[in-house]
């Protein structure tokens, strides 16, 4: 038995290690870029909504519309659809580099909505109180709104990372590599079940690690009372379930 394991590692160890590494890179780099774009978009969506701090209904409607359109693309369709654009800006339509534009384009609007929702959770009176102190809108956003929404935003990070992890499996279809690609190639085409099972196990471990780290971080930064914290955690759980459902049924 031990010799079988040694053989398996000798034959597929490097492949799986490389796959894990490229999966991690493919998750982290686009997510970082998407958070910069998504947070800015989310803040603008929040501020320009009717009745908010800087209501601009027309801009809000247009942005909301763009976000909804991007979110209604199944990821694999979006990826194929924008290949010419990806080639233009990345110089290639495939590989890890080729996955960054579609992942960013897919994750940013998702993040924008999550940030908008996290900001909307901040109690109205807290916002009005800092407004009544004579704070400017940028001051309200950076010193009050975003810090107050931080626990909820951190919980959202787990949802986003796990969704992007799901997308990277599909990105394997354009030769990006990664664990999802390995699982499909070895499991589906070559029928080497052990490799597929191993790839799936690593994916499960990655998801668990992301979830645990984010939950821990969210608890660490949360200074609200037990009641508000619990309701925010409950919402994050519902978001996760919705994100998982949206992955099921897509190739």
């Amino acid at each position, binding site marked *: 038995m031990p010799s079988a394991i040694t053989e398996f590692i000798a034959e597929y160890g490097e492949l799986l290690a490389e796959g894990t590494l490229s999966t991690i890179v493919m998750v982290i780099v686009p997510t970082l870029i998407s958070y910069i774009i998504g947070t800015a978009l989310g803040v603008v969506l929040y501020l320009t909504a009717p009745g908010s701090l800087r209501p601009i209904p027309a801009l809000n409607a247009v942005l909301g519309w763009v976000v909804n359109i991007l979110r209604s693309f199944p990821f694999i369709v979006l990826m194929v659809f924008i290949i010419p654009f990806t080639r233009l800006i990345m110089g290639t339509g495939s590989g890890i580099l080729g996955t960054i534009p579609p992942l960013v384009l897919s994750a940013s609007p998702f993040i924008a909505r999550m940030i908008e929702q996290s900001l909307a959770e901040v*109690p109205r*009176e*807290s916002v*009005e*109180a*800092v*407004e*009544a*102190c*004579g*704070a*400017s809108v940028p*001051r309200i956003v950076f*010193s*009050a709104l975003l*810090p*107050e929404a*931080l*626990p909820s935003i951190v919980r959202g990070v787990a949802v986003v990372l796990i969704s992007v992890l799901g997308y990277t499996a599909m990105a394997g279809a354009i030769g990006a590599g990664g664990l999802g690609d390995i699982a499909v190639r070895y499991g589906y085409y070559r029928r080497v079940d052990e490799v597929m099972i191993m790839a799936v196990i690593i994916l499960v471990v990655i998801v668990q690690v992301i979830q645990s780290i984010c939950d821990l971080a969210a608890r660490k*930064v*949360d*200074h*609200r*009372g*037990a009641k*508000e914290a619990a309701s925010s955690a409950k919402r994050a759980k519902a978001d996760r379930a919705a994100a998982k459902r949206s992955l099921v049924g897509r190739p």
Partner: protein
Amino acid sequence: MIQIKHLCKVFDGAEGVAHALDDISFDVADGDIMGIIGMSGAGKSTLVRCINLLERPSSGQIIVDGQDVTSLSGAELRSYRRRMAMIFQSFGLLSQKTVLDNVCFPFLAANGKVTADNRAHALELLDMVGLKEKASSYPSQLSGGQQQRVAIARALACDPEYILCDEATSALDPASTNTILKLLRDINRKTGVTVIVITHAMSVVEKICRNVIVLEHGRIVEQGSVADVFDHPTSHAANVLLERVDWDA
């Protein structure tokens, strides 16, 4: 001195146009503690939110020390709001900041930074409201009455000329209510700050106010000194608020 002249506020709602405030005119003298009382929906919150322009009046003027403030915007509006501190029913503290940082927020809003002097001043204010030892706690670790005292310390950090209290004691038990009212009265006596108290509880008006305005359906139905209104209430609203009508009628 605050002079309110023919103030109107109209909301365009789904059920048509609602006149939240209808031709309100009154003056608040410097150093006064003025009560604005009315039933829920009488427009008293809208009125106080118009005074610091969290709500824009539909028409009319608000003149503070000779200056019409209704047209203020940008930096002028922000500096006006610092003269006009506000205390809320559910406190409006930032739950992710410590008590001290909450009290320091007005300095941050005004200057973009908090200096050591600011911190020392904030600690003095916390000492004044009896919560110095809670400086590094978070609001969720405090009782409602304590949170409201922090909110008062924050309001004072602006070094305001006026304090607006929007149902400041409505969420508190009678003992905490008394603490808050005594605090407001003492601050008024010590610093001469003008206080405007919105409430639906006559007991609050009776304890600390000198003058009172009774609002009903967005209109002033009675105004005068607290003694006069309490002795000879003429409006129906005042009689109901004073519980001088048969409750079972």
